[in-house]
């Protein structure tokens, strides 16, 4: 095939001047990158910095417009992912490609290029999973597996091909802290055996813990190369977003004693409408005026079901299951709940929180028509709607051409600011936000946090559903964990530790013990 006698010491992989232009966006602008043998190399950058495009080019999913890929001393043109795999490059994508109804072995067999590789597949899976500490039962059906287990299938699938370079795209976004630690052990072991790892993430602490070198990208360019362990997370973040980060300050509000809860959920059980969704089981909690409750948990444990139940998209079985300022609304739809002061920001922006093909002012009208009094005699009050949209854009610093811009033309962070702004400016008594900063850059996230804190200070009750524990610890007063559709009793954030919450997220315990108790046991 090709000559392998070259380079023992030179970089395994080096990229020179990789450039990729998309319509309206220069995704990669003369990117240089090199990964040495045995190295765990971080590719760090915000959403939209061009990391995913770059690795797709390395893995042969896309071709660069210009630039060179040198793999073990040879210049190569990656034809396809199959070509990349033949050369010894494996990749674990952020979104898995697994068939839910097939077993682990069947899924792996389907991904193999060469039918001959299917011989003794089961034994080889068991062997690899044992060797690298990736416990996996070959005959279980994928839909019974946790996200962490599914990821192991993808990793084992790569390792079966004995790769020399393993690309991991945001691998920890779906894992509990404990699972992350296990994954890191596996990766370190792989690296010590000669497999280089290109690790893509925007989580700074992880990169500092795992990676020896880092390439930092911003807006399609490489802006720095450094050793992450020698930098603080703050320094890395500043390199990543090119701005000095103000330390997030938040005054812990003193909650009014004995105030009636604005939101009270009592024994809410709901069957998930999705075949593999999580059913909500006896969810009970309440949120006081001025309080921010965080709901932590790994994706797919009932977060979206909880969101739909709170917003009224899916109705509860009895009105008393959900009370908004004392009014039983369990059987009332979204408009009735909004009339009572409930506002909501769902996780998915395009197609759920907003209509991508519609303008910002139409999207402002979408949920604010009643509270903002934007309808007159059955007609849309255009002038008021446009003014409202302009006001959101101004107050939340939404970067856009104006209220006539299509929602889908906005970047994720800007659209999220608009959607949070749309709800905040309706002065809600209750605001429920699912994944407030998912796919949002640090600057926009800070603005969103400020708006949420201000709303709470003015007496609203907030529920923040998030997979990001750092976010919950930063913003929330109390935290509860949703796991397999059950919600743990909320505890004050200052008494909780990330480790405990992580354990509950993984289903280790049915309830969170308070920090003091945990320390006694330690």
């Amino acid at each position, binding site marked *: 095939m090709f000559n392998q006698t070259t380079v023992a010491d030179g970089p395994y992989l080096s990229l020179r001047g990789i450039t990729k232009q998309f319509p309206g966006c220069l995704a990669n602008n003369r990117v240089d990158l090199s990964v040495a043998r045995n190295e765990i190399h971080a590719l760090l950058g915000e959403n939209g910095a061009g990391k995913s495009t770059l690795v797709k080019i390395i893995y042969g999913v896309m071709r660069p417009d210009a630039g060179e890929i040198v793999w073990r001393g040879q210049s190569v043109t990656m034809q396809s992912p199959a070509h990349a795999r033949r050369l010894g490059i494996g990749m674990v994508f952020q979104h898995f490609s697994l068939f839910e109804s097939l077993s682990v072995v069947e899924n792996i067999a389907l991904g193999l290029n060469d039918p001959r590789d299917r011989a003794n597949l089961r034994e080889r899976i068991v062997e690899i999973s044992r060797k690298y500490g990736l416990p996996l039962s070959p005959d279980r059906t994928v839909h019974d597996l946790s996200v962490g287990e599914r990821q192991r299938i993808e990793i084992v699938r790569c390792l079966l091909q004995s790769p020399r370079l393993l690309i991991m795209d945001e691998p920890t976004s779906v894992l509990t802290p404990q699972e992350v630690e296990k994954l890191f052990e596996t990766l370190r072991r792989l690296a010590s055996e000669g497999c280089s790892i290109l690790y893509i993430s925007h989580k700074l602490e992880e990169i500092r813990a795992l990676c020896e070198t880092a390439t930092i990208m911003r807006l399609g360019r490489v802006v720095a190369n450094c050793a992450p362990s020698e930098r603080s997370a703050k320094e890395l973040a500043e390199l990543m977003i090119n701005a000095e980060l103000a330390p997030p300050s938040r005054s812990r509000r003193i909650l009014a004693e004995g105030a009636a809860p604005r939101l009270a959920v009592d024994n809410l059980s709901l069957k998930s409408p999705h075949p593999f969704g999580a059913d909500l089981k006896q969810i009970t909690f309440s949120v006081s005026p001025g309080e921010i409750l965080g709901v932590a948990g790994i994706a797919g444990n009932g977060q979206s079901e909880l969101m739909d139940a709170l917003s009224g998209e899916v109705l509860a079985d009895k009105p008393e299951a959900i009370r908004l300022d004392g009014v039983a609304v369990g059987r009332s739809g979204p408009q009735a709940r909004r009339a009572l002061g409930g506002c909501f920001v769902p996780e998915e922006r395009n197609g759920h929180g907003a*209509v991508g093909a*519609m303008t910002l002012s139409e999207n402002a009208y979408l*949920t604010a028509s009643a509270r903002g009094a934007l309808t007159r005699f059955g007609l849309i009050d255009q002038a008021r709607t446009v003014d409202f949209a302009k006001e959101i854009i101004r107050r939340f610093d939404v970067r856009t051409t104006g209220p006539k811009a299509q929602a889908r033309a906005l970047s994720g962070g800007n659209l999220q600011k608009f959607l949070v702004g749309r709800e905040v400016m309706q002065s809600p008594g209750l605001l429920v936000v699912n994944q407030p900063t998912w796919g949002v850059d640090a600057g926009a996230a800070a603005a969103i946090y400020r708006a949420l804190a201000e709303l709470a200070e003015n007496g609203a009750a907030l529920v923040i559903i998030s997979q990001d524990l750092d976010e919950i610890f930063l913003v929330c007063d109390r935290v509860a964990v949703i796991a397999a559709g059950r919600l743990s009793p909320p505890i004050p954030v200052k008494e909780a530790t990330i480790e405990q919450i992580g354990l509950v997220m993984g289903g280790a315990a049915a309830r969170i013990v308070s920090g003091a108790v945990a320390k006694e046991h330690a």
Partner: protein
Amino acid sequence: MRFEPRGKVSILWSYASPILAIALTILGTGAIFWALGQAPGPAVYTFLVAPLVQVGGLSALAVKAAPLIMIGAGLALCYRASVWNIGAEGQFTVGAIFAGGFALAFPDLPGWLLYPGTLVMGVIGGAAAAAIVAALKSELNVNEILSSLMLTYVAQYLLIYLVTGPWKDPKGFGFPQTAMFSDGATTPIVVEGTAVHLGCVVAPIAAIAVWALLSKAALGFQLRVVGEAPRAARFAGFSERRLIWVAMLVSGGLAGLAGMFEVTGPIGQLTADISPGYGFTAIIVAFLGRLHPIGAIFAGLLLALSYLGGDAAQIDLGLPNAVTGIFQGVLLFFLLACDILILYRVRLAKPRGKPVGAAA
């Protein structure tokens, strides 16, 4: 040649695409004429231009376009809400039956009561036929494409039954038709000396009204949201059921109105054959008009021309009347094909794999 995503909607091409499609359709139709042994140029002229320049051509065009515009505007609204009513032909027929039945039952009512009554009955008939589809979809989740299409045949056989059975004109020499409607139940002519009737004026007004509903009213906004992003509609609390009913009743009502004008105007009675497929052609009208009610006015005129052209091709060229259907089919084909240009641009093939370091 390959298609490359533009990354956004091209405003230019959303208008240029139907024009390109029309041009390609003319070329394609010319090729078909040529294959049938006709000189393509004169044949296309006979088909598309001659009907307009002859005496009474524009009047005939207006009469053919009226039902297409009315139904097409209603369907545009329906399709914007992602409710795929393809049974407008049946709703047209039921509207005609209701209107015709009323006119036959009360021929001697005073005119101020008889004609408006006939008109309202036409709307009710079309809406009632559509209501069956709406009920099946909103209550039992029956696919509206199938139910509306199948009900079209029910409506047609109902019409045939009525005109050959209970409503047959006893003095009609056995023809499958009812008695002629009384004068009071006949759609008035608005331009003396032509065939242009009240429906030709109502059609564009109806299209403008539908446009206003869609773009100005809260209800129209809800219809567009449910069509564009059903989850967002649920999130906003719009009732999908209610919107299915609205979309079906509006489009069915307009189809019924068109049916009423047709039988009380140009035809003057109920017969077994009251429509050359207006309800189906209006689907093309809706799409050719970019699912925009105002676009339906222009599209309706073009498709009306294809009916006139079909007659002309039959008379002057000795070609079968199926030429109309072929023209409409070719037009829909090119229209859907050209729409790819709205989201994609054409790139001529470049040699794969540029030399390395080209940008350095």
